[in-house]
């Protein structure tokens, strides 16, 4: 019978391929903070904007995911954009309008919106 | 396990049993650590923090009631800091307690008062806001006064651990914590069985009986009325304690005399109606045995048990004897047969029961027990109330000349006497049932297997080759345990006796408070009260209920025979299920 360590190795490989099949290898990954605190600060609405952009707005080559709280309470909601080969960029205090701009400028044109970046 | 360890208390070494708490060890070494919430028959609460001690190597004080010993433990019970801390703790309790000691029910008999005195509290440091709640007067039997509550939790533990009723619990937080029935519903509507054990264990006057003495005094002064009293067996065994006597003195004659001095025209004995109960109950039992009626038959003398059963064991209603309690049988006779005899309109008779029991106040008001549209028992006063009525009327109880009961409801057998102790009803019933069934006299009438204070006792008796298995429970918690067996194995017992209070009626909720150097419901005290009744039984020439000539006369002249139509009319009753309010189903959800 397979050892637990072998089983977990297999499960891990399967998990990774499932994540990849969901588009993890897109050139950009977007993470929206979705803990209670972030939701209270408005991250659900922000998430909606990104979701809409991916499903209806023709935003392609983007992997969208939620994440937990990283601890930057005073800057929530936070949105993180990771581009392959570049430093990750984290935006703080994002609202739906700002989210739309992130889509339009950063995700579509590759322009980082410096004013909102958490330094 | 009798492993010994060496500990030191206040610098002196002692060799003691390992398997005990610091408090128990200190007690055995002659140190009485002050205490409040502790009660040896209840679980350890550790709430009051009065019994704190210092243990070397521990940074905090330790509640001695809760902490086990270890070898080499160095305990200090009386340092300067400890004395101040204990004082401060008791003072904190006083600071949130009404300052009305001299008009309080428990004045002179209050554990908090005694403790405050002993701690040397002569002035206050931290006075401030006090709690203020309303008294709950809704119950027929027990008054709840949260203002006087010091939250020791004894009543809560008593109600759940010993009585299994769970009528009380703490609610609220912090300063606003209060002991109350579920949802703060009126006591009368709660699952409270009115047993009054909360009163017995309460160190203050947060629980007291509902007092009917003023009403009674008024009636006693009314010359247009005929005042008739009956006294429960256990009252005479305990009333002396209310006058400073040690437990166990039978004060029957003194009580009769005192009641006459208080203005009663007739003083009868509930032991007489206990004999009557036995004849009826034994007959009912034999009928059930012979005619394959519902078994086991369960006794019905204890009023708290009646309510408990209707709430929690409605499925067993058919098993309950239909016999009224001795008090209600006596009152029914007083308002009918006796009224006829003395040719007085029963409306002009006041039937008063002197009981050891707060629940009898509830029983008296049960509509099922009405006789010809009248309440059979008009007023119930408990032993404690009678004590102070005697005192306030200026009667020298201790030096009074004992008197005899009136006739016809005054004569009793030894069987009626032992009703007051757990197992007594069963013993009395078997003495009669045996003879009725076999036609022979039971020689060895003291049934030791069902005597004593074990929670559940079982025994067997063989009648004409038929084995009769009996079980006896005292305290409603034990009743619960026994009835769970009955539910599962209905054939295991033929006859079951249940008494609602620990030890039976002698431990009733209306008995005198514990003496200053004693604890409530102390086993030695209960034993002494029991012995007062057993010795009375031994002294009697007539020890079987059916041999009581007054009982025989009553059947001849009035009732006809046991279980006759008349008997059923006057001496039997019925029960109905009661939805218990405010407590969850007993089934605890298993994980």
């Amino acid at each position: 019978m397979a050892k637990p360590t072998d089983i977990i190795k297999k499960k891990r490989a399967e998990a990774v391929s499932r994540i990849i099949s969901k588009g993890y290898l897109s050139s950009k990954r977007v993470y929206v903070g979705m803990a209670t605190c972030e939701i209270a600060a408005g991250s659900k609405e922000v998430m909606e904007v990104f979701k809409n952009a991916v499903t209806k707005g023709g935003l392609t080559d983007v992997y969208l995911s939620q994440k937990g709280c990283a601890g930057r309470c005073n800057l929530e909601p936070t949105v993180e954009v990771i581009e392959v080969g570049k430093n990750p960029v984290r935006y703080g205090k994002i609202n739906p309008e700002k989210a739309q701009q992130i889509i339009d400028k950063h995700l579509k044109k590759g322009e980082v919106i410096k004013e909102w970046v958490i330094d | 396990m009798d492993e010994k360890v060496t500990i030191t208390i206040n610098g002196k070494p002692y060799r003691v049993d390992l398997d005990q708490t610091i408090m128990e060890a200190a007690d055995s070494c002659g140190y009485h650590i002050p205490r409040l919430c502790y009660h040896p028959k209840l679980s350890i609460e550790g709430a009051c923090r009065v019994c704190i001690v210092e243990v070397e190597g521990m940074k905090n004080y330790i509640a001695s009631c809760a902490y086990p010993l270890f070898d080499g433990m160095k305990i200090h019970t009386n340092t300067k800091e400890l004395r101040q801390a204990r004082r401060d703790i008791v003072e904190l309790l006083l600071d949130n307690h009404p300052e009305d000691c001299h008009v309080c029910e428990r004045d002179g008999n209050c554990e908090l008062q005694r403790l405050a005195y002993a701690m040397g509290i002569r002035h206050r440091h931290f006075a401030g806001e006090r709690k203020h709640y309303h008294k709950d007067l809704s119950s027929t039997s027990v008054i709840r006064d949260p203002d006087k509550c010091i939250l020791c939790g004894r009543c809560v533990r008593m109600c759940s651990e010993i009585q299994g009723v769970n009528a009380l619990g703490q609610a609220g937080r912090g300063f606003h914590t209060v002991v109350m029935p579920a949802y703060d519903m009126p006591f009368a509507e709660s699952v409270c069985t009115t047993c009054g054990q909360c009163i017995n264990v309460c160190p203050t006057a947060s629980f007291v009986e509902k007092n009917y003495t003023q009403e009674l005094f008024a009636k006693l002064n009314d010359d247009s009325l005929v005042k008739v009293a009956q006294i429960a067996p256990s009252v005479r065994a305990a009333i002396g304690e209310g006058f400073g006597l040690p437990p166990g003195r039978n004060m029957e004659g003194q009580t009769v005399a005192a009641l006459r001095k208080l203005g009663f025209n007739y003083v009868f004995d509930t032991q007489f109606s206990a004999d009557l109960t036995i004849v009826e109950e034994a007959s009912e039992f034999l009928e059930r045995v012979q005619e394959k009626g519902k078994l086991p038959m369960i006794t019905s003398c204890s009023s708290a048990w009646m309510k408990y059963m209707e709430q929690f064991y409605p499925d067993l209603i058919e098993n309950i004897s239909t016999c009224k309690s001795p008090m209600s049988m006596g009152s029914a006779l007083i308002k009918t047969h006796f009224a006829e005899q003395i040719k007085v309109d029963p409306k002009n008779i006041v039937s008063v029961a002197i009981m050891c029991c707060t629940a009898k106040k509830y029983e008296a008001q049960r509509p099922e027990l009405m006789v010809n549209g009248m309440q059979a028992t008009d007023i119930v006063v408990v032993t404690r109330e009678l004590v102070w009525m005697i005192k306030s009327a200026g009667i020298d109880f201790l030096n009074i000349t004992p008197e005899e009961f009136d006739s016809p409801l005054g004569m009793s057998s030894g069987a009626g006497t032992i009703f007051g102790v757990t197992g007594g009803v069963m013993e009395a019933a078997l003495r009669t049932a045996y003879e009725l069934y076999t036609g022979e006299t039971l020689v060895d009438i003291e049934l030791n297997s069902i005597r004593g204070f074990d929670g559940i006792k079982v025994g067997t008796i063989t009648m004409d080759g038929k084995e009769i298995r009996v079980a006896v429970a005292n305290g409603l918690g034990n009743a619960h345990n026994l009835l769970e067996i009955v539910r599962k194995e209905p054939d295991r017992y033929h006859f079951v006796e249940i008494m609602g209070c620990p030890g039976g009626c002698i431990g009733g909720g209306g008995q005198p408070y514990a003496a200053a150097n004693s604890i409530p419901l102390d086993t030695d005290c209960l034993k002494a009260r029991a012995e007062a009744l057993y010795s009375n039984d031994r002294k009697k020439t007539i020890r079987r209920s059916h041999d009581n000539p007054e009982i025989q006369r009553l059947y001849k002249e009035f009732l006809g025979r046991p279980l006759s139509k008349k008997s059923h009319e006057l001496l039997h009753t019925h029960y109905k299920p009661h939805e218990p309010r405010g407590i969850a189903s007993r089934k605890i959800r298993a994980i």
Partner: protein
Amino acid sequence: MSKEYIITICDGTGCIQKGNAAIRKALEQQLKDHNLTNDVRINLSGCLGMCDKGPIVVINPGYTIYGNVTPADIPEIVEEHLVRGQPVARLAIQEDHLYNRFFRIFGDAKFFGKQMRIALRNCGIIDPENIDDYLSLRGYEALAKVLTDMTPKQVIEEVKLSGLRGRGGAGFPTGVKWQLTARAGSLNSPRAASDEKYVICNADEGDPGAFMDRSAIEGDPHTVLEGMIIGGYAIGAKQGIVYIRAEYPLAVRRLEKAIADAREHGFIGKNILGSDFSFDIDIRLGAGAFVCGEETALIRSIEGGRGMPRPRPPYPSVEGLFGKPTLINNVETWANIPVVILDSGKWFSTIGTERSKGTKVFALAGKVVNTGLIEVPMGTTLREIIYDIGGGIPDNKEFKAVQTGGPSGGCLPAKYLDTPVDYESLAKAGSIMGSGGMIVIDQDSCMVDIAKFFLEFTQNESCGKCTPCREGTKRMLDILIKITEGKGEMYDIENLKRLGSMIKKASLCGLGQSAPNPVLSTILNFREEYEEHVKDKKCRAGVCKKLLTYEITDKCVGCGACKKACPVAAITGTAKAKHVIDQNKCIKCGACFSKCKFDAIIKK
């Protein structure tokens, strides 16, 4: 914005000893020489736990770790890695400690630089509702390792070796607790295996302003579950229970999903991962009583009773849930377990101080620029937390105190800023570690008022069982109210101390035993403020309303705005002339103060 490169130099004791200062100096020089100062940020980190390979230099992005770096290597690193973008293979080391991922992903170096994430290693990184995310980051590998290679005894030994202590507040050594629970039952009955045992996760986080447990469960529920399953294996339990506040609906939902997913994958249930070990986890919701964080009260609550503590011993490890031996640890403690197993207890024990190992999560709140959830190695000083991570006090205000350990912790003044955060040092300074609340207080706060606030909380949350806590804290609160209303006497301060020390020593549970801490520590450290309230009837922070006086200064231009705003007509004055407040009429509502456009009204 994030810079081109972030270089993290390990500033742990080991690397300091091995000369990381020289490396930093060399690095700074090289950056200057290559004109890279503006593109590269250097920061120091707490011990990264690779002391044997130190000094350690980490370069992000790319997460290249250089070990055994000497100053002579620096030019090559700068030349090759920073300028040409080619990591120096010769110096790079492969490390796969779980916690390190955090630095790879975040560029927010100022906030995260001094942090070290073990318990929160996945929080803010993975999708908590997707078990695949957790699996991809070696999730449940610790469990598999335990089931394959380790006996329960070895697991306990590993935890003991790690030096991990309970993160719920008391700091009891976790491994010892596990061992006691594992042995319990075997003492009472020789057939220990048949004895029922329980594992509980205490997620009843009730401190005001604390959100460590919530964030941990919301961000990474599986690590808590994995820890619990390992705990169950180690002590021989079959059932785990997470006791969590009903006020955390999202955390509860994610936990429920995590349990369901884990069950589907065979991490929970019968014959976990094909082994003969079976374990299940259930959730119980708490009704939001602070005292239910106390283990015996929590257990009573699970049993269906009113959450009230009972005296210990017996401890839950001997007699816990339903009278069975019970292993109860808090969320953060459980979250550390998979790391201890995978990265070894020995490695874990290299982090932190001599007696406090690993990291601690804090909810940093109050008057600090970066409020947030942080995790730092034990031994990080309060100053580093407040100034480096927290970014200092906003609006250039003065630091006054920091309150650690939740509502029952102590308030430490500036002189304790260099206190390292560990169980013993905080206790020595007069506060506690607690479960991880940390509230920064600035000059605008009145210490008497702060003490009153916390005491009000503990008094309201006292279960009401024991006298000292129920009645004593109420009397202390009465006295504090008296003082803040200007009715205090000097003996009141002594009475506070007398009551406070009695309550600490005589109370039944931890709540009462620590409730007086805020009062006692503020009397100790800020006695002058108490005396001002009592003697001078003054509150220097201007917080205690009843002690305030509002006065109009010469700045007044006589606009009349204050006069109009005053609800009790206490202000008189003619137009364009200085107005006056009648102190007898003034109710100190502050309406005039906020209306004045010329800063002419002052609070005294």
